[in-house]
């Protein structure tokens, strides 16, 4: 049977913020670009981002600049971040936000007409450009409309809207194809018809987001099945930092059907406080040693900070997300939780009702309609939810290039930028900064090629066979296998981990791999969710194995990886990355690698006293040498 075939210079997989920004860049550099996405155009998970995009524009506090943002990002990630990415991100985020405005975005304004910026956890100054609490929607819509604008330009010049940039919506890629060691294209299927599609392209940008659907309680949508992570592994690329998963401290806990849905951090940024069943603002008991001097120790000081930031320290509700999530977890475990198993998040006693509805319209709406709770009159109940994976494809900071020639990655699917924990607001800016860089990286790579790599027919045949297999089989229900994987990861490789439990999870995952090979899907090839899930399961299981193996190896607690049996941070481990690969295509190997040393001009942006909390004695001696010279 003949397979539909398309030729492009750059194929971008994923149409969230990173994918669209990458595609826009590739097209602006004159490359014929395809955007391939599992959902309709404009529906990607980026719409769920609420709080804002972090960029040191200094519109609200003129003391803000890229160096402060860089420091906050490194601190948030517990110094495990790829420092070059953190540097580029902090320097370029303002330009990326301003550019959106020139493409039609309408951010909330300051009194003098500039883009307003709001406070967020771990950010020293008000830094998040926002539109109420629906910033992600604004970002995706603006990028979507920018793609349309480029298509209109192409129609003017070439008489065809899709001459240079085309969206393949509701289309899933199941394999990357290679000519020797180089990328030569991608294989996928149309969700609508079930028929196959082949992309002949020398460069592929992965922008597929995260892996949350491997967990039961998650803020992520069905699309987050780790596709890009798995595609990269199967193509021979490496993943780093897979043990670091961000459990957002505030997900809804009731009703059960919405458990995990995100409650934006802006609630706390705008004055909301966390209380336990005794009515105590418990976060004051959980300020870790490394942050002691930066956070208020009394409620009075914390409350004064909202109006006078120069003379007061911020309230501990605004600690980085990992700290807050662990604190909530501990309160619930200690029996001080709310009736439905979370804690109380209250903004009703902190702001006038009108102000809450203005600043947090979608939270108001969400609680009113889904939980019958009026957040202007009563507290919410919240608890941790699997939200974001810091780990992903190991890439070159400047170009987004992976170890496989022709394969690029940006956004959540890439690893390094956020270290062991991402600050809120740093995701939307990450998408823009590194989406653009990956698009440019892919375009430059294509320019440098002497000849187009070829699509090998045997790989196409194998991909076709693999995708069709579940349809012909009278096997197990894929929904059941999926549910067991979710429960396993949630219970055994969740927010608090121990060696026995993670080992147990690995045994289950090993068995699940076998069951995934035998799942069956009834029905036709036309829009068949059971079949689609059967195909996605391969990715979820592979990525879950990466998470569990890396989590078992890292014998310390840092950011989004907490080991009950190794409670503290260990400076020796800070220098090490855990690198996952899957050379045989089904089992994961993890090895340790040393992080490159931070550049002198960057490390000297920090105080010695702060570095001392993170670095080894050997590294401190090096630092003293630099500081002296």
């Amino acid at each position, binding site marked *: 049977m003949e397979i539909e075939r398309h030729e492009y210079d750059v194929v971008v997989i994923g149409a969230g913020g990173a994918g669209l920004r990458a595609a826009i860049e590739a097209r602006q550099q004159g490359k014929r670009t395809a955007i391939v996405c599992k959902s309709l155009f404009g529906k990607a998970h980026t719409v769920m981002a609420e709080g804002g995009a972090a960029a040191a524009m200094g519109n609200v506090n003129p003391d803000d600049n890229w160096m402060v943002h860089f420091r906050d990002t490194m601190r948030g990630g517990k110094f495990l971040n790829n420092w070059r990415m953190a540097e580029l991100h902090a320097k370029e985020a303002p330009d990326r936000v301003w550019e959106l*405005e*020139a493409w039609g975005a309408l951010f909330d304004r300051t009194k003098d007409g500039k883009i307003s910026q709001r406070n967020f956890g771990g950010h020293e100054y008000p830094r998040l450009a926002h539109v109420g609490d629906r910033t992600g929607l604004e970002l995706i819509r603006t990028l979507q409309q920018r793609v*349309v604008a480029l298509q209109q330009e192409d129609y003017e010049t070439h008489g065809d809207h899709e001459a240079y940039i085309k969206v393949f919506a509701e289309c899933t890629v199941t394999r990357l194809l290679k000519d020797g060691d180089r990328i030569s294209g991608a294989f996928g299927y149309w969700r*609508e018809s079930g028929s196959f599609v082949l992309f002949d392209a020398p460069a592929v940008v992965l922008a597929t987001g995260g892996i949350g659907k491997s967990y039961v309680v998650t803020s992520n949508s069905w699309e987050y099945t780790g596709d890009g992570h798995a595609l990269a592994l199967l193509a021979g690329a490496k993943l780093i930092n897979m043990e670091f998963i961000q459990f957002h401290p505030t997900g809804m806990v009731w009703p059960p059907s919405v458990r995990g849905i995100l409650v934006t951090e802006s609630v706390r940024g705008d004055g909301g406080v966390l209380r336990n069943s005794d009515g105590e603002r418990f976060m004051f008991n959980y300020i870790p040693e490394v942050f002691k001097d930066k956070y208020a120790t009394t409620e009075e000081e914390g409350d004064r900070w909202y109006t006078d930031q120069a003379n007061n320290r911020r309230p501990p509700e605004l600690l980085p997300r990992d700290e807050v999530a662990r604190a909530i977890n501990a309160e619930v475990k200690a029996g001080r939780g709310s009736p439905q198993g979370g804690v109380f998040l209250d903004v009703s006693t902190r702001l006038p009702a009108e102000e809450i509805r203005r600043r947090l319209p979608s939270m108001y709406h969400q609680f009113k309609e889904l939980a019958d709770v009026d957040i202007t009159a009563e507290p919410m109940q919240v608890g941790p939810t699997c939200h974001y994976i810091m780990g992903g494809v190991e890439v070159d900071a400047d170009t987004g290039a992976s170890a496989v020639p022709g394969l690029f990655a940006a956004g959540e699917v890439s690893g390094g930028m956020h270290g062991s924990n991402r600050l809120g607001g740093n995701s939307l800016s990450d998408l823009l900064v590194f989406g653009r860089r990956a698009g440019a990286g892919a375009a430059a790579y294509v320019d440098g090629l002497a000849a187009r790599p070829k699509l090998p027919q045997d790989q196409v045949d194998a991909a076709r066979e693999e995708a069709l297999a579940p349809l012909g089989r009278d096997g197990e229900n894929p929904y059941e296998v999926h549910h067991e994987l979710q429960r396993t990861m949630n219970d055994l490789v969740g927010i608090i981990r121990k060696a026995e439990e993670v080992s147990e999870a690995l045994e289950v995952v090993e068995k699940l791999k076998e069951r995934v090979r035998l799942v069956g899907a009834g*029905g036709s090839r036309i829009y*068949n969710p059971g079949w689609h899930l059967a195909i996605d399961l391969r990715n979820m299981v592979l990525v879950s194995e990466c998470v569990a193996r890396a989590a078992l190896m890292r014998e310390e607690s840092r950011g989004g990886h907490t080991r009950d049996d190794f409670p503290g941070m260990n400076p020796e481990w800070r220098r090490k990355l855990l690198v996952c690969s899957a050379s045989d295509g089904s089992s994961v190997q993890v090895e340790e690698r040393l992080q490159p040393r931070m550049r002198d001009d960057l490390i000297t942006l920090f105080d010695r006293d702060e570095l001392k909390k993170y670095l080894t004695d050997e590294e401190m001696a090096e630092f003293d040498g630099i500081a002296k010279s």
Partner: protein
Amino acid sequence: MSYKAKFKVWRGEGGEGRLEDFTVEVNEGEVVLDIIHRLQATQAPDLAVRWNCKAGKCGSCSMEINGKPRLGCMTRMSTFAEDETITVTPMRTFPVIKDLVTDVSFNYQKAREIPSFTPPADVRPGEYRMQQVDVERSQEFRKCIECFMCNNVCHVIRDHEENKAAFAGPRYLMRIAELDMHPYDVADRKEAAQQEHGLGYCNITKCCTEVCPEHIKITDNALIPMKERVVDRRYDPLVWLGNKIFKRSK
């Protein structure tokens, strides 16, 4: 807490289909989309439905529930009596692909026909200065999650395939209003709204406003003001009538 509900769900593909009966468990706090998912997991694994965020933010799970356009994820089961049979059908204005999934490409085609944001040539990124009060009008329209239920319910095209070519639908007429009210947009959109995108077809019955899950006042804040802007140059009897009727009730 939990009970068995009766559902009728439209199933079919390739232009044929029928309502299929299901009896399915419902638990406290669930929404219609949860029930559809339970049907997928337990009784009909190939039942097709679009969804993403499950929190009313992405606009994917538009469907008709007991004949009314609704987001499946925002329709709580507690709004129905336990013995009520709930009928779920795909959006009627767009061709069905399979079950609850429709071909919404009409909307993307209309989006492409509307000229994009056109800022003045001499303003560079970072130099934009706008007051909150001036951006709020367009911000209301940018809350749109593109669920396409306004276009689905609009009687101009709901049962009139022949009008589709000439009419952008409330979603995209609102997009024109959004751009027209953008403080930095310099394109002239009024003539085109009327001539090319079918603003004149709208007779302000407000069906679109009623179904909008974001509670955007599409008719009052986008379509009527846009008609008024057009009227500066042209006479439209409906605007005249609309002003009489709706201004009075305020």
